[in-house]
């Protein structure tokens, strides 16, 4: 009997010990789980913030893309429209120049073009070319330039002269077409200012 009761005592002790072990394991597992849960809340919050911040970044990026490309498209359309208008203005102006009256100050213009050309070439020993309309005016002015010859060959231009040295080494294009071409970039700016666009 005595041995039975000591055996029961031992079994009880073991059971109590095991029970307390299990309970303490359960406690620590519970606190560990709570800890993990607490930790994961902050991780989740961080991840949530990260997702929100990435989303905002992406939205900003897309907004920039959309605004940037639509602004550019609108600006490019404006540029094309302005350029078309500039072309129209030029075409009209060239037409008016081509059909301008050759009397009055036009002879002075031809003289100044001849002056400029001979000065740039550094010689009066030149051959002068012009179109059929300006032939007479140029010829009448040439008497003031000893050594200068008038070419019977006409050139295709709006007006003005093209001057070539007699040895053929130098040419100075002083036609109205060439002048307009040289000044075109500046004139374009003036035209767009008239339209009230640009900078």
């Amino acid at each position, binding site marked *: 009997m005595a041995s039975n009761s000591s055996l029961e005592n031992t079994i009880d002790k073991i059971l109590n010990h095991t029970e307390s072990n299990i309970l303490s394991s359960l406690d620590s597992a519970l606190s560990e789980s709570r800890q993990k849960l607490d930790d994961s809340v902050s991780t989740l919050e961080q991840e949530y913030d990260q997702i929100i911040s990435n989303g905002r970044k992406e939205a900003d990026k897309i907004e*920039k893309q959309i605004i940037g490309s639509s602004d550019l498209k609108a600006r490019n359309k404006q540029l094309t429209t*302005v350029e078309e208008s*500039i072309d129209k203005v030029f075409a009209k102006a060239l037409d008016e120049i081509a059909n301008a009256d050759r009397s009055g100050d036009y002879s002075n213009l031809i003289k100044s073009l001849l002056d400029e050309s001979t000065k*740039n*070439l550094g010689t009066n020993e030149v051959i002068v070319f012009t179109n059929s309309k300006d032939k007479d005016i140029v010829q009448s002015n040439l008497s003031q330039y000893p050594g200068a010859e008038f070419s019977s060959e006409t050139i295709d231009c709006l007006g003005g002269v093209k001057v070539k040295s007699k040895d053929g*080494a*130098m040419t100075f294009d002083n036609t109205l077409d060439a002048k307009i071409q*040289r000044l075109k970039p500046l004139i374009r700016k003036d035209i767009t200012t008239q339209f009230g666009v640009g*900078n």
Partner: protein
Amino acid sequence: MSEGGVQYSKIAEIKGPLVVVDDVSNAAFDELVEIETNEGERRLGKVLEVGNGKAIVQVFEGTTGLSISGTNAKFVGKMMEMPVSKELLGRVFDGLGRPKDGLPDPIADKFVDINGEPMNPEQREYPKDFIQTGVSVIDGTMTLIRGQKLPIFSGSGMSHNLLAAQIARQASVVGTQDDFAVVFAAIGVQYSEAEYFRRSLEESGALKRSVLFLNTADDPAIERIITPRVALTVAEYLAFELGMHVLVILTDMTNYAEALREISAAREEVPGRKGYPGYLYTDLSTIYERAGKLNGRKGSVTQVPILSMPSDDITHPIPDLTGYITEGQIVLGRDLFRQGVYPPVNILMSLSRLMKDGIGEGSTRADHGEVSNQIYDAYSRAQEVRALAGIVGKAGLTEIDLKYMDVGDAFENEFLTQATDENRTIEETLGIMWKIVSKLPKNEITKIKDKYVDQYYKEK
């Protein structure tokens, strides 16, 4: 210089990219010349030498197809000029500044000589404001400052063009409402690269604030002499006339130097190192020195020239001479590139000399300089430990050595490595830097004040 417009038809010689014109009077050095071919095609050039009735003209678009008879040279009477206005923003031009986007010529506010005017040293203002590139390794450890010239030394095939495009897309000035613009000059790049730059800026919406100059590899080499100059002319106008902060990216300056060598050889000049002309240093300085800030002017011109070092040789004349002129360098490393790290910046060989003046309280954050120094120190130590591990094996390393190895790995994988479309703020960059520094025990952090360690150190 004469009024210009005289056309000469006595071509004495055509030699490589040069045309020698006879019986020329009144031509001026650097004067713009229009070469007209038999077929009426026009090419641009400039006077390199005048004297004894001759003028040597360098033809930008090459001399292929030109013949002595029937070719005319018209001396225009002015230097090469670039039309400038705010309207250039959002436009794409070729290497000579002609529209490449199918739109008309820009309407100019004025025409500016592409050689620029030298900045009066007395008028220069010391650069001290930060530019955020959104690339951690640059913002964190080699900060770019407004008005600085900070080159990227790369090697053939490396990811410098990706980095260039990323900087162009992301760069911004923080803490100010001032306008910011990017002038991007691609010099002698492949067609696919030029297209990538254009598309990349267009799709990100950054083209709106950018001006692109694209000189592709199949364009005549001589055009490359002009490309950086037209780009800088536009940048100077935007910066000093319109008050914008302008970032100029020039890629690849090696192609520029090659073009310079080609002309020098055609002129039969005495070659210097590796055949480059003896005046390579002076010539490069006429480009690089066009960066800066001026007293009393709002804007700034910042330059990031990119050059690929032949055979990755940093002693090659181009990087060597560039390094003398610029204020630091960002070096891309072949080993990192092979590991697949992007951007593969070797921070131990890189340096931004002006960084210290543009970071810290009021610019970035008070702890920036110190955490950057600590990162340098730790990565340098990590490299030493890696070398040691290669000999004795990982098992032979101490616990602290292993921590440094860990820091080295984290530096490359978390800080250096970045997606090409990832734009990190300076706060995010500093956060990553602290995360890496915090892998070390506190007693190893010797370069940072305690108050910053207390504030930012991330305890495990």
